[in-house]
C-alpha cells in the first residue's frame, strides 16, 4: 500500500475531517531535579481513515504520546504540562477521569504490545468483549453477545462461538492480538492507537495482523496512530510518518517521500541502520567461506530435547514437549551459523542444550570430544570453549556486581591469572568492546542497553572461547545500536576466529551476519545451506513464507501476496511413545539441505 491508496470511505464522511488534533503538546516527568521534559512541542493532525505512524527508537517519547492521548499517563509522576489534544470537539487534556472513561474505548481505543498482559487471564474472551461493549452502550446481554460474535468474526477468527468460551491462555499470541483488535474496534472508535502492536509476534503472524488491521481500517475508516520502532512496518502501513527523537519531532512527511528523500540527518541515519534483506549480498563475504568439510568445531548428531509434562497428584508422566527433535548440524571454525525460526520452534533450546543448561539426548561433540563422555573437570574445561550471550543483557548480568567484577568472574571461576593479571585483562576486554576503562567500577544499570550487551560480550570473550552462542542477542536493541553490536561481533570474529551460533527470528539481521543458515520449524531443521542458498533460492515452503513475511522498509516495494493463514501452528506436545515424523534432509547440491515436503 502506498500513500496514493485512498481509503474507501462510507458515503457522507469527509475524508479531510480532522478527528484528532494535537497542538504544542508537552509532557514532563517529575524527578528530583525538577520537571524533566519527555515530549516537547508535539503537534499533528489525524484525519479520518488515515494511518499516521510515530516512529522512533526507545526513549523517543512515542509511547508517552499514545498514553497522553488516552489520558493514561502515570499521573502525577508524569503529566501534560502544556498544549492541547482535541478529539473532535472535546478537549482531552484536563478532562475529568469520569468523562475520559466514557471516551476511552468508545471514541479512542488502544491496542498494546503484549496482548497476554492486556487481557484478563481469568475471564473468557467472550465475557471480556461483552463487558467492554456493555460498558459503553446500553445493550441487553443477547444483543451484546451478537455484537461480540460479529466483532470476533470481523477479525477473521474461525469458529467465533467456540472462541468466546475460551480463556486468553488457550489462544496463540496472534489470536490474542486479534481479540484485542476486535475489542478495540467493536465500538467503532474514531481513533485507534496501536502501540507496537506486532512487536511481540512472530514475523508470519505479524504479517497477518498487519493485513487485518489494514483491511479493517479500510472498512471502518478509523484513523490509526501506529507507534512502532520498525521502519519496515512503517513503510507497509503508514500514510504519513512522524519521526521522533528524545521527545522532539525530527521530521514529518508522507511515507513515500520520507523513505525516498529523508530531510533530516537523523532520519537518514535511522533508515540506513535498518537491516534489509538483500543488503547482505552487497557485503564482502566475511573471510570465512570455508571449503566444505572444513574444520568442524561442533558436531550435533540426532540431538533431541524433550520436556516432560506431568499431571495429577503423583506427577505422572503424561506427555512430552518435543522441543528439539533429532537435529543434526555442524558448526565450523570461524563461521557464523544462523539458526532462524519463530517462537517455540526450539532454536533457543538447542542453544541451551549446547551450553549445558538443559539435558539432551543424542550426541554433541566439541572439537572431537563428546560432551556426554566427559567427567566433571573436563566438562568445566570445555565450558570455556562454549559461551553464550543472552537476549536481555540486564537480566543476564548480576545487578549487584560491578562491571569489572562481572567480566572478571569467569577468570576467577577458572582460576586464570593473578588478581593483577585479571584486572589487566578486564581493561583489555573493555577496550576491545569499546567501553571506557572507568566502566569497570560502575554497575550494569548505569549503562544503556547496547553498552550492557557489550559487557555481556566482553564477559563471554574473557575465556577466549571457540564458540559464542548469540541467543537473540541483538533483538532487544534499537536498530542503530543493533548495527553497531553486529559490527563488533564481526570484528571480533575476524580478529579471534571465534565461531558464532547466531539465533534469531529476524531474517534481515541473519542475512547480514551469517555464513550459513539453518531454518527450524517445530523442533526440526527444514532447510540448511549457505546464506546465498537459503536467501537466494529458498526451497522449503516454510522458508519462503518466512522470507515473504518480513516487512520491507520501502513503501515502493511490491507487496508479495501471502496466503492468509487462519490455522494454528501444530502443537509440539506428544503423548508418550508418539512423536513427530522425522524429517530427513536431502542435499539439493552444494550442501543445500532441504526437508522434502
Amino acid at each position: 500500500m502506498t500513500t496514493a491508496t485512498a481509503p474507501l470511505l462510507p458515503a457522507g464522511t469527509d475524508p479531510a475531517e480532522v478527528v484528532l488534533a494535537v497542538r504544542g503538546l508537552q509532557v514532563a516527568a517529575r524527578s528530583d531535579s525538577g520537571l524533566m521534559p519527555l515530549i516537547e512541542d508535539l503537534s499533528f493532525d489525524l484525519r479520518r481513515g488515515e494511518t499516521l505512524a510515530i516512529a522512533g527508537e526507545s526513549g523517543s517519547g512515542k509511547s508517552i504520546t499514545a498514553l497522553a492521548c488516552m489520558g493514561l499517563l502515570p499521573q502525577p509522576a508524569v503529566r501534560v504540562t502544556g498544549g492541547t489534544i482535541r478529539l473532535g470537539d472535546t478537549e482531552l487534556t484536563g478532562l475529568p477521569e469520569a468523562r475520559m472513561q466514557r471516551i476511552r474505548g468508545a471514541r479512542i481505543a488502544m491496542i498494546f504490545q503484549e496482548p497476554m498482559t492486556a487481557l484478563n487471564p481469568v475471564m473468557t474472551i467472550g465475557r471480556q468483549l461483552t463487558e467492554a461493549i456493555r460498558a459503553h452502550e446500553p445493550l441487553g446481554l443477547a444483543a451484546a453477545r451478537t455484537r461480540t460474535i460479529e466483532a470476533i468474526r470481523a477479525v477473521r477468527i474461525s469458529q467465533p462461538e467456540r472462541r468466546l468460551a475460551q480463556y486468553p491462555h488457550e489462544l496463540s499470541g496472534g489470536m490474542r492480538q486479534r481479540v484485542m483488535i476486535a475489542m478495540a474496534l467493536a465500538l467503532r472508535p474514531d481513533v485507534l492507537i496501536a502501540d507496537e502492536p506486532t512487536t511481540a509476534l512472530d514475523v508470519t503472524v505479524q504479517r497477518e495482523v498487519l493485513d487485518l488491521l489494514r483491511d479493517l481500517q479500510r472498512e471502518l475508516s478509523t484513523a490509526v496512530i501506529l507507534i512502532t520502532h520498525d521502519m519496515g512496518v512503517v513503510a507497509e502501513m503508514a500514510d504519513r510518518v512522524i519521526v521522533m527523537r528524545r521527545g522532539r519531532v525530527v521530521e514529518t512527511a508522507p511515507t513515500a517521500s520520507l523513505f525516498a528523500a529523508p530531510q533530516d540527518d537523523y532520519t537518514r541515519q535511522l533508515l540506513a541502520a535498518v537491516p534489509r534483506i538483500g543488503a547482505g549480498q552487497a557485503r564482502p563475504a566475511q573471510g570465512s567461506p570455508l571449503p566444505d568439510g572444513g574444520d568442524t568445531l561442533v558436531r550435533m548428531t540426532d540431538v533431541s530435547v524433550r520436556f516432560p509434562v506431568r499431571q495429577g497428584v503423583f506427577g505422572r508422566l503424561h506427555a512430552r514437549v518435543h522441543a528439539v527433535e533429532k537435529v543434526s548440524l555442524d558448526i565450523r571454525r570461524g563461521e557464523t551459523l544462523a539458526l532462524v525460526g519463530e517462537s517455540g520452534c526450539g532454536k533457543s533450546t538447542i542453544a541451551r542444550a549446547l551450553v549445558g543448561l538443559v539435558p539432551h539426548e543424542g550426541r554433541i561433540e566439541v572439537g572431537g570430544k563428546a560432551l556426554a563422555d566427559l567427567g566433571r573437570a573436563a566438562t568445566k574445561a570445555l565450558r570455556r570453549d562454549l559461551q553464550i550471550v543472552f537476549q536481555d543483557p540486564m537480566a543476564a548480568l548480576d545487578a549487584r556486581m560491578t562491571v569489572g567484577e562481572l567480566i572478571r568472574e569467569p577468570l576467577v571461576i577458572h582460576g586464570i591469572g593473578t588478581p593483577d593479571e585479571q584486572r589487566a585483562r578486564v581493561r583489555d576486554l573493555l577496550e576491545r568492546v569499546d567501553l571506557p576503562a572507568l566502566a569497570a567500577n560502575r554497575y550494569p544499570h548505569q549503562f544503556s542497553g547496547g553498552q550492557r550487551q557489550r559487557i555481556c560480550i566482553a564477559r563471554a570473550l574473557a575465556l577466549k572461547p571457540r564458540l559464542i552462542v548469540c541467543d537473540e542477542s541483538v533483538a532487544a536493541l534499537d536498530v542503530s545500536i543493533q548495527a553497531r553490536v553486529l559490527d563488533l561481533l564481526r570484528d571480533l570474529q575476524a580478529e579471534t576466529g571465534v565461531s558464532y551460533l547466531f539465533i534469531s527470528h529476524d531474517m534481515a539481521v541473519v542475512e547480514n551476519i551469517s555464513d550459513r543458515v539453518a531454518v527450524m520449524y517445530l523442533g526440526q531443521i527444514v532447510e540448511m545451506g549457505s546464506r546465498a542458498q537459503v536467501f537466494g533460492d529458498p526451497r522449503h515452503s516454510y522458508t519462503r513464507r518466512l522470507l515473504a513475511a518480513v516487512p520491507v522498509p520501502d513503501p515502493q516495494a511490491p507487496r508479495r501476496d501471502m496466503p492468509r493463514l487462519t490455522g494454528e501452528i501444530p502443537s509440539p506436545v506428544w503423548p508418550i511413545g508418539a512423536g513427530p515424523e522425522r524429517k530427513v534432509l536431502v542435499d539439493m547440491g552444494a550442501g543445500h539441505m532441504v526437508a522434502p515436503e
Partner: protein
Amino acid sequence: MTANVSTSPEPAAPLDATPPFWRRLLRRRLAVLGLVVMAVCVLGAVLAPWIAPYDPNEQHFDGLTIEGAPLPPGAMFWFGTDLLGRDLFSRLLYGARTSLVIGVVANGAALLIGTLVGVTAGYFRGVTGAVLMRFTDLMMAFPALLLAICLAAIFSPSLWIVAMVIAFVNWVQTARVIYTETSSLAERDYIAAEKTLGAGHGRILFRHILPHLVPMLIIWGTLGISTTVLLEATLSFLGVGVQPPTPSWGNIIFENQTYFQSAPWLVFIPGAAILALALAFNLVGDALRDILDPTQQGRD
C-alpha cells in the same frame, strides 16, 4: 537509552565515587535515629546493674499508695511502680536484656533456619526441595503457640531455651518467602550465564543468590522483632516462657494488662519500648537495604 546513529558512544550515567559505607549510613537522619534508639536499648541492658536506681525485683513499701495501688510516674519512681510496688524503670532496664536476646537472637536464628531451608529448597528443587517445603507447610499448618508450649514444657524454661523455641516456631514464614524468591532468582538469565561460565553451586548461591535476598531478609528480620518479643510475652504469661520474677518487656505488659485503665503507664511504657526497638531496626534496615543495593546508588 538514546538513539545515536553516528559513531559517538552512547551516554551513560556519570560516575560518582561512592562514599564509604558508614558515611552513607550516617547521612540518613532516620537511620541515625534508629541507631541511637538501638544503642540506648543495648546500653540500658548491658549497664542495667549500674544505672538502675533500684533492684528490679525489690518490692518497695513506699511504692504503693495507702490503698495498695501502684504509683504513677514521679520523681522517686521515674516510670512509676507496678502492682507489687516494684520500680518500673529498673524492670524495663533489666527486661531489655531478655527482650533484646529474644528479638535479636531468636529472631536471627529463625531467619537463619528459614533462609537455609528456603534457599536449599528453592535452588536445588527436586526431592530435597519437595521434602523441605512439605515439612515447612506442615509446620505452618500446626498452631505455633501450641508447638511452642509443648517444646517449652519439654525443656526446662530458660532464656536461651525460650529463644530457641521461638526460633523453631518462627522460621516457617521466612522459609516460604525465601523459597519463592530463590526459585524465581534461580530461573533468571544471569544465573544461567554463571552456569555457562562454569560457576559451581557454592559460588552461585553465595555470590549471586544470597545478596539478592538481603532486602527481603531485612524486611522479615525487622518485622520479626515485635512478633518474637510478644510471643515471648505470651509464653511467659502461660508460664512456659521466661520465669517470673525475671522481667521482660513482654511479660511486664502481660502481667499488667488487666489494670490498663487504672494504671495505663504499666502497659504503655513497655509497649512504647517494644515499638521503639522494632521501629529502630526497621529504620536501620531500610537504610541498609538502600545502601547495599547498587541500583539505588547516587540517590542519597
